[in-house]
């Protein structure tokens, strides 16, 4: 009888030990969840963060980092449930990578004080000690690209394909217009009121080119539609948010890449010291967050043009140039 009971007790202990094992293991793993409005390979905003998280993963020992993500979370109600689910599951850092997720974080973050939340293109952290906000100062890159585009085309007509007149898309476009007009190039801008309508983006690009623009730029995950038109018409494209060279290697002059690594590193190191948020970050040239990727492999690019872009970026960092026009 005693032997039988001992076996039952041992069995229960073994089950409990096995159940406890993953918990112990999970505690050693830094778990990150990302919620994004589009895809991890959108050549745009979402991909920039995903790639930065992959870089972050490489700084952890093998098995010490876990990344999960939810794509196509354009619907805020769905995103809110996903954010809460990840927090419930004990993820250490939940990244809500889109300006539309702010109210969800404001509602959810107070319920999970041990979870760090980060809000992409966020404007404020609502006084929450566990929310960090980050945004790209896209106007800096826009200004430099405007100047570069004007020089590259000898003050030719330039076209900008925008999605929605808000967020970093708008600041990038405003900076581009300012840079180009200061350098003497006329700029036309279209907004399609959609982040995803590739067909309309393609039509917008065609309209710019019909009106004489030879160099185009634009943002959002619908830009493959515009790049396709540029490729067909042997035009030039300048990419933003992520490297668009693979979309048209013969036509993309340069891409302004968002590298979120410096910001992520800071968030993680603060978390290790017990601080889960309460900070606002700007992605700028200064911290290496805004980077140029020149298509020197496929195009002959005047080194002076590259030097000019670097010089302008340095002047913006030094405060000698204001990328946006004075109000």
């Amino acid at each position: 009888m005693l032997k039988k009971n001992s076996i039952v007790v041992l069995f229960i202990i073994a089950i409990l030990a096995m159940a406890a094992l993953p918990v112990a293991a999970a505690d050693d793993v830094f778990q990150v969840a990302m919620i994004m409005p589009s895809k991890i390979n959108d050549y745009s905003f979402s991909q920039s963060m995903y790639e930065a998280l992959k870089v972050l993963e490489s700084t952890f020992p093998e098995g010490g980092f876990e990344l999960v993500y939810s794509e196509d979370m354009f619907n805020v109600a769905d995103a809110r449930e996903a954010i809460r689910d990840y927090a419930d599951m004990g993820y250490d850092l939940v990244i809500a990578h889109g300006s539309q997720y702010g109210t969800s974080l404001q509602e959810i973050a107070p319920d999970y004080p041990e979870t760090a939340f980060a809000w992409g293109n966020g404007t404020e952290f609502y006084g929450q000690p566990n929310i960090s906000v980050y945004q790209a100062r896209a106007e800096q890159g826009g200004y430099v690209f405007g100047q570069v585009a004007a020089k590259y085309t000898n003050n030719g007509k330039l076209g900008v394909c925008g999605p929605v007149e808000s967020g970093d898309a708008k600041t990038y476009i405003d900076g581009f217009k300012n840079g180009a007009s200061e350098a003497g190039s006329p700029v036309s801008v279209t907004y399609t009121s959609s982040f995803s309508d590739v067909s309309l983006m393609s039509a917008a690009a065609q309209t710019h080119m019909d009106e004489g623009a030879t160099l185009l730029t634009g943002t959002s995950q619908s830009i493959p539609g515009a790049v396709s038109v540029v490729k067909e018409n042997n035009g030039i494209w300048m990419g933003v948010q992520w490297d668009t060279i693979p979309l048209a290697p013969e036509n993309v002059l340069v891409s302004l890449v968002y590298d979120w690594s410096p910001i992520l590193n800071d968030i993680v190191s603060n978390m290790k010291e017990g601080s889960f948020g309460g900070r606002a970050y700007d992605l700028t040239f200064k911290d290496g967050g805004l980077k140029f990727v020149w298509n020197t492999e496929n195009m002959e690019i005047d080194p002076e043009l590259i030097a000019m872009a670097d010089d302008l970026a340095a002047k913006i960092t030094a405060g000698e140039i204001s990328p946006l026009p004075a109000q």
Partner: protein
Amino acid sequence: MDNLFNPETIFGIIGMAVTLAMPYLYAAIGELFDQTAGCYNLGTEGIMMMGAFSAFYVVYETGNLGFGVLAAAIVGLLMGLIMAVISVTFKAEQGISGIGLTMFGVGLSSLLFKTLLNGTVLSVKGFKSIRIPILGDIPYIGDAFFNHNIMVYVAYLLIPIASIILYKTTLGLKIRAVGQNPQAADTLGVSVNKIRYLCVCGGAILAGIAGATFSIANINMFQEKMTNGTGYIAVALVYFSGWKPWRVLLGALLFSFVNALQLRMQVLGINIPSDIAMMMPYLLTIVTLIFVKSRDKPAALAVPYERSEN
């Protein structure tokens, strides 16, 4: 504003409208046949996405544009068969089953994109423009109307073809009879189910090709959800048309023209808020729908046919 009224700009806008109308024409003429026979197909959007992916994938693998169109047509046919089985044989509620088919098509095309192409945005060489001899050389008009790819020309040929089939042939008479009064048609020996299967499948083939126009005849790439609601607009255009092929053409051109116009106005720096500009085509569609008389609406539209055995 003066820039807008020079012939080059005006015909440029018209030329773009002619191209933009292409997918609407394929999808709306397909839907017109469905509805004339008494069947809704709100699955058009999903069929278009599957057509867009299958055409793109086949062209990407083979480089043959004809095979791409064929693949889109076959996939359209298969999805049309699903819709016909659900709505004609099983007599399910057509609106709901159509929405289900759209979700299935959009989801499956995304899954296939991720599985077969690793979700990577790639491009193919699509149909090239063909300048029609003599007509294509007419100043302004030539570029606007006679310098497009073959898929655009075929889209416009569908209008007279559909009109002839519906109003000059026995088959057209049967289709209209089945949509207006299936009992009477059945009494006269017309197989209601056979006609409805034919129209739903034929309409779905055109919807599949409509999807292909995005991926191999216009943008020449594939991206998830790239049809972006065109299928639903095609359904609205059928209402707009009052179930008449020539009015489908009018609606598609009007919608596309306003779209092309608002883009051109933005490029020309004509100061209107971009959101209002983007609303213009949709507002126009809604306003027009209010004034469309529904006297020609097929009386048995969306009504499953139950044969009376008495």
